[in-house]
């Protein structure tokens, strides 16, 4: 049996680990709530933009704009969102696996893929597998409008003039604290179906897309300066909704996955500390018994 002192040190270190995991759990819980609130704040924008689009195009189908035209895919751009840090269960590997499966489904070789990695884990993964990682950034909690606009502008440019036939975004979709699912969405060519799915995903109030005040144009609806120009201005804004919500969803997922992982680590640490305490008590008892029997043995030896 291990020495008493060793067991005591072990117990102390387990308890300290538990303190750390407990703290991380609390931090993740707070961050998760923040990400959810931000997602809610973006709802008005998503609703307004999709409403305008529906009324301008006057139908459920988008046609006649370059950014909505499907082509056969020879080159694809993937925007992959993971976390920077680990300790969050299977969160990142699930996204990366889903992306990989999707690439294989398209039947493209690494040279036909361009990756934009948000989050260190995604960058590491794709660099290691020989893909072109064109841009990699950290996945921080502060998402700025500027960052989103840059990303969308790049995607628009790639899709419209530099030979990219499809732009997809991969992220972890947040359903609840215990459930996140890897999700892939097609940004370009833009489709109303995908857009609706994104707007619906905005947590936690569901079905908000239903109240977009009808698709028909009101009487005397004027479009200035022209339908094309309004579409030209609206479509990238819709794409930025995709990106923004993907970022928020992945953050909410990251924090909740980490919260759950840290909670089970804390529970495990508590259990371990308990078992170790029992071992310690047993060892101490054994030591005392041994000492007593040594003393009585010595006394007996002297008395004879």
């Amino acid at each position, binding site marked *: 049996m291990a020495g008493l002192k060793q067991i005591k040190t072990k117990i102390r270190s387990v308890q300290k680990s538990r303190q750390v995991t407990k703290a991380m759990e609390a931090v993740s819980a707070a961050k998760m709530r923040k990400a959810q609130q931000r997602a809610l704040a973006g709802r008005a924008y998503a609703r*307004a*933009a999709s409403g305008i689009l529906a009324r301008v195009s006057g139908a459920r189908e988008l046609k006649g704009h370059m950014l909505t035209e499907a082509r056969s895919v020879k080159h694809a751009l993937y925007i992959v969102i993971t976390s920077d840090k680990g300790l969050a269960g299977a969160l990142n590997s699930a996204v990366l696996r889903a992306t990989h499966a999707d690439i294989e489904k398209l039947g493209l070789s690494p040279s036909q893929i361009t990756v934009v990695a948000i989050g260190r884990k995604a960058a590491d993964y794709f660099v290691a597998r020989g893909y072109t990682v064109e841009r990699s950034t950290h996945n921080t909690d502060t998402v700025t409008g500027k960052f989103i606009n840059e990303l969308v502008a790049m995607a628009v440019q790639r899709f419209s003039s530099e030979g990219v036939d499809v732009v997809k975004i991969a992220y972890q979709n947040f359903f609840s604290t215990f459930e996140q699912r890897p999700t892939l969405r097609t940004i370009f060519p833009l489709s109303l179906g995908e857009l609706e799915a994104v707007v619906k995903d905005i947590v936690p109030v569901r079905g908000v897309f239903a109240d977009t005040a009808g698709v028909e144009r009101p*009487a005397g609806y*004027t*479009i200035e300066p022209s339908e094309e120009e309004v579409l030209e*201005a609206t479509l990238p804004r819709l794409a930025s909704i995709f990106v923004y919500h993907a970022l928020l969803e992945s953050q909410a997922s990251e924090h909740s996955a980490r919260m759950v992982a840290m909670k089970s680590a804390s529970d495990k640490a508590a259990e371990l500390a308990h078992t170790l305490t029992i071992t310690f008590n047993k060892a101490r008892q054994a030591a005392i018994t041994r000492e007593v029997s040594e003393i009585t043995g010595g006394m007996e030896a002297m008395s004879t």
Partner: protein
Amino acid sequence: MKVVIAKVDQNLFDGEAKSLTVPAADGEMTVLPEHMPVVTTLKAGTITVRSAQGEQQFPIESGVLEVRRDGATVIL
């Protein structure tokens, strides 16, 4: 009239307003209640909202304005 001015990551204005002045693609334009429905692109300039709380200004680089029977929405 209900006015919403929204960016992707935040709502700049959401509430009742008396009038809304925007730099529309073909010149400055002021929207009053009962304005006819219109959708237009915006160019760089300043949006001015006049409400019961006074006047608020927002500088913008671009955007889209939609006026409906029940209000106006600007997305930046």
